[in-house]
């Protein structure tokens, strides 16, 4: 299958100022972080972003320049923590770097298998680098997949 990054449509609460303040009330914060986890996962899937590094976060995700509001670093860390907690990501370096699992490992395995079949590569020995960025995988779902 060939996939390109999809244009992303932000949810309506992304245009609402309080969404960018880490809520002080626990129950409300839990709901807010739930919404952020959904947003982060969907954004990473659409942008084909595998790693979120808070030292270099994607500009468009944690801030809305139209309001203008931005999530504080603490708030961003809380989002990553919540995402890891619900199994939506794996820590590469807590608390700032997370591998976002917007697709299950099984699904990735299936996608890899399809590329191997399409290119008649069964039985060949491929390096991890060839698998993620070789000519056979260009334009397919597995391009850019980190090791």
């Amino acid at each position, binding site marked *: 299958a060939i996939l390109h990054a999809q244009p992303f449509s932000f949810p*309506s*609460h992304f*245009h*609402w*100022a*309080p*969404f*960018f*303040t880490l*809520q*002080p*009330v626990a*129950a*409300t914060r839990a*709901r*807010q972080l*739930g*919404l952020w986890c959904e947003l982060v996962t969907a954004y990473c899937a659409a942008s084909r972003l595998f790693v979120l590094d808070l030292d270099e976060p994607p500009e468009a995700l944690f801030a809305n320049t139209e309001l203008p*509001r*931005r999530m*504080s670093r603490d708030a961003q860390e809380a989002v990553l923590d919540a995402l890891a907690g619900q199994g939506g990501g794996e820590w590469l370096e807590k608390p700032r770097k997370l591998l976002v699992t917007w697709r299950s490992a099984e699904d990735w395995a299936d996608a890899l298998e399809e590329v191997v079949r399409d290119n008649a590569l069964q039985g060949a020995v491929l390096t991890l680098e060839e698998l993620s960025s070789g000519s056979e995988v260009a334009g397919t779902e597995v391009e850019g997949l980190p090791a």
Partner: protein
Amino acid sequence: EFRTRLSEVAARRRQDVTRDPTLRAHFHQMCAALGVDPLASTKGAFAAALGLGDFYYELGVQVVEACMATTPINGGVIDLRDLLRLVCRRRGSAVAPVDEDDVLRAIGTLKALGGYEILRPEAGGRERGRTLVRSVPRALDSAVTAALEAAAAASPEGCISRAELCAAKGWPEARAAAALGEALEQGVAWLDAPSPEEGLEARVYFPCLSGELLTG
């Protein structure tokens, strides 16, 4: 006599009443004048003749779904206009249209679920009176309602700062802080506290006042 006639009319005009909100409103007015509640029992003569029991039951389910979908953000308080819009979206365009009165009647049948109270906060100044639906069992206390009213009058986004609330209600700071804090605690308001560098005052936003922004 009237009752017999009414049930005859009901049987003949069944399709018309379920299709037309104006006709439906007229029918309910006639029933009210006679002291008859067509929704009192889904097995009642009128409900059966008109299929109104099914109609309001289905609408009630759609109201509950819309309220449950929005409660995570608005804490269980929603503007009737927004609720109507969400319900109509759920219903789609192929079925009979419904209006605010229909939604209010359906809500009347939901009392057994707990909650589903209609609130009519006071309008201030040029702000038109609005109708809110509380779908959660806990009632809003008077301080929170007052803060909500002030926020509705203060800004189209439905937000207010502590200083603005003091000015609007003539309250001392502590009272305004307590009211806003309670609104946050009850989950019917969210805090907007931009960073100190941005030099903006913290504000409390009521999602039920944000209109189409949050409900779409």
